[in-house]
Structure formats: C-alpha cells, structure tokens
C-alpha cells in the first residue's frame, strides 16, 4: 500500500485472493493479501472485504486480483456498502481482475456501491472463465446518499469464456443529459445486475417492472434491474436470479 501522499493523490492498493483445490477436493485460500483500504477477512461464508478506510476517495487507485484454481470455489462478500466520495486527487478507481479455472466457481456479491455527490469513480471488472467455470457476479449501484445528486460513476464489466467474449457491458453515468433521459435509467436511482455464467442456466427471457432476465448469446444470463432504493433493487435482482437459475 502507498498511503496518501502530501499532495493528496490518494491510496494505491493492490489486494489479492487465491483459492485452490487441494488433494482432498477442498478449497484452500493459498493467498490472501490485504492492502490499505482493501482489508480482507476469511470467514466460513467466504472472503469479506471489510473496508479499512472510508471511500474510495478521489485519487484512490484500488485493485483486487482474484484467482480461483481448477475445481476450487470462492465467495467474496463485503461487510458494508462502498461509498465513492470526492477527493483532492481527481477520480477514484476500483479494478477487479478475476481468473476462474476449469470447473471452478466464483461468487462475487458485495454490498452496493453508493455514488456520493461530487464523486468521480470508475469501476472496472475483467473476468476470464475457463471451460466449465461457474460465475455469479453482482454489482449494485445507488445514485447518491439520501436525497443528494450523485457524482460521476462509470462501470465496465468484461467477461470472457475460454477467451471468447461473453459480456462487455459498460454503464456510464457521467452526463445527466444522457443518463437522465428516458433511454438509460428511466428515472431510477438504483441500478444493478447479476451475471450468471456457466452450464445449466435457465434461458427463458423475462421482463417485468424494472427487471429483465436476459439470456446471453454465450453461456450466461444477465439479470438487470432498475429501482428507487437499494432494498428494492436487491429484491428485484434476487427474483430475477431465481428465474435464471431455473
């Protein structure tokens, strides 16, 4: 970790988790590296991001690398919402890179990110899945703390399966003239999705109020939802997931 410099350029943190299957078939965490605001704790339910500092703040540059070996399982959760805040160091960034080996399973479902007033946050996720790998990837975004107008938030998710693109999906909320119109958010203040990838998914599309279950061209289903609150968003996503899981 590099602590904030005197000029206010923010944290630079690089955390990592490695999960591998041992000879008995059980998954062991063979690597668990916390760094600065990315504090990780191993629990029976999975690895928790416990958030050792508020933020990310403008200027923070955070990265988390997840490696799931062949046949291993890893669940990642967080203890609380991440609140993207402005700072003197310009924009903030959180990049997650994940590689899941053959027949491995990654379940990444942290609490929501809240885009606070004045933030300028970029979230990047790059996930590569090997043959037979299973993914559950949830991203939830709440626009603003109570009653405030959110700052800028851009999130991109890139997922490949055996090096073929499965989903490349960017949600740019950096210009209210665009995302404030009827085509992008439709007035919602909470938006999110769950990507399920792997074999055996139910591939019937569904559309309801503020919820769509979208079977992808490749082996995956994207559940996407729009809501007024974080709780409503979670309910919709959970329902959509139950439909996609078959």
């Amino acid at each position, binding site marked *: 970790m590099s602590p904030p410099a005197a000029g206010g350029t923010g944290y630079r943190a690089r955390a990592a988790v490695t999960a591998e299957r041992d000879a008995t078939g059980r998954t062991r965490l063979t690597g668990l590296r916390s760094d600065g605001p990315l504090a990780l704790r191993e629990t029976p339910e999975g690895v928790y991001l416990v958030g050792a500092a508020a933020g990310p703040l403008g200027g923070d540059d955070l990265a988390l690398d997840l490696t799931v070996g062949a046949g291993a399982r890893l669940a990642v959760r967080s203890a609380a919402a991440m609140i993207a805040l402005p700072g003197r160091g310009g924009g903030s960034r959180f990049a997650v890179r994940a590689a899941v080996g053959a027949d491995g399973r990654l379940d990444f479902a942290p609490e929501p990110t809240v885009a606070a007033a004045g933030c300028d946050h970029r979230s990047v996720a790059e996930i590569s899945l090997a043959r037979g790998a299973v993914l559950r990837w949830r991203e939830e975004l709440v626009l603003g703390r109570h009653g405030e107008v959110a700052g800028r938030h851009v999130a991109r998710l890139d997922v490949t399966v055996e090096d*073929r693109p499965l989903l490349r999906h960017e949600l740019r909320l950096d210009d209210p003239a665009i995302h404030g119109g009827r085509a992008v958010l439709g007035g919602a203040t909470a938006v999110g999705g769950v990507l399920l990838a792997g074999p055996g998914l139910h591939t019937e599309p569904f559309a309801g109020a503020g919820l769509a279950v979208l079977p992808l061209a490749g082996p995956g289903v994207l559940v996407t939802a729009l809501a007024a609150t974080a709780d409503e968003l979670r309910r919709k996503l959970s329902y959509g997931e139950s439909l996609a899981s078959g």
Partner: protein
Amino acid sequence: MDTALLLLADSRLPAGGHAHSGGLEPAAAAGAVTGVADLAGFLRGRLATCGLVAAALAAAACAHAREHGARWDLLDAEADARTPSPAQRRASRAQGRALLRVVRGAWPHPALAALGGDPHHPVVLGVAVAAAGGGPDRAAAITAYGSVTGPASAAVRLLGLDPLAVHRALADLAAEVDEVAARATTAAAGGWAELPAASAPMLDLFAEFHLQADLRLFES
C-alpha cells in the same frame, strides 16, 4: 460524401429499417416518451449507448473489410457480447440480413460472403461502406446517424409529433452525432475487446417488453 454512401445512409434504402423503432415504440407504449422534449432525451441516450456501440462495430467491420480480414466470427461475438437483450440481438440480425440482401446486389464485395447468413446490422453496414468505397469514419457516421433518425421518424408516426419539431431536435443533436462517430472511429482503430460497450438498461427492458405487446407496429 460519395453518392454510394448517401444511398447507404438513406432511410429509403430497401433494407427494412422502417420496420424498427429502436425501442421507441415500447417507450411510447410505456408513456416514457410522449412529446418532443422526451424524445430528444431518448435519442440522446440511445445515441450515447447503442449508437456509439453500433458505430464502433461498424467502423471496426469497415476497417477489417478494407484490410481483407477474416475474423468475422470474432467480431460477431464482440457484437453479441455488447447486446445482452435477446430481442435486440434478434432485431440487429434481422436488419443485418435485410441489409445484406441489398448490399450483395448493389455493392458486391468478397467480405460479404464471409459474414454468413445472419450477421449483425452494424457489421454488415461497415462492410457495405467499405464495399462502396468509404472508410471507418464514414461507417461510424452513417451508423450513428441511423441510430437517432430511425427512432425519430418512428416517433412521428407513433405519437403524431410535429415533423418540423422532431427535425429541429435532430438538428440540435447533429454535433453530438458527429462526436459519437468520431469517438467510434478512434475506438475502432484499437483492439476489438476495448471497443465501447455503453449500455442502456431501460432500452434493454423496452426491447424485451416489446415482444410481449399485443399490438405492435414495429418489429423492435
């Protein structure tokens, strides 16, 4: 601009574009677009998301055809990966098929045979521009332009909006269309994995809702 490229941009091109509203019909049915002001916001959002993505794919396809490339299956997968809605994938391929028929007759090009029978619309449009002698910047411009003119004319038909007011809204968007085309052209000069992937969750929802509607004037 060459006349061949004007023909490709013309809504009178017999490629079935008039049958697609770009999500405007379901948005109107849901009451999300009722007048010219809503429409302008809708078009701006569509341009910055689907429009940018399609323009970049068209520019990439145009460049690939000019370089005699053969990775059409990968570009098709890149288009699929940027189109999570099955209804939108179907609409894109339906328009791609229709455009392919026109282009095969009017502007024969070896890359057209390599696209298969069911290509995505922006990919065909990019190859068509190459076949008609244009570059990636023209492919991006024609695609970005079509991403707003189609829904705008659908709005006139569906909502009975004043065509003069709708065209004023389009004229107000012209600089943004140019900017999106320029960004798409720049992006297409890089790797395909990094091409824009801007999404519009409401458009995805509208596209799926549209298939459930009892009465539809447009296919998408």
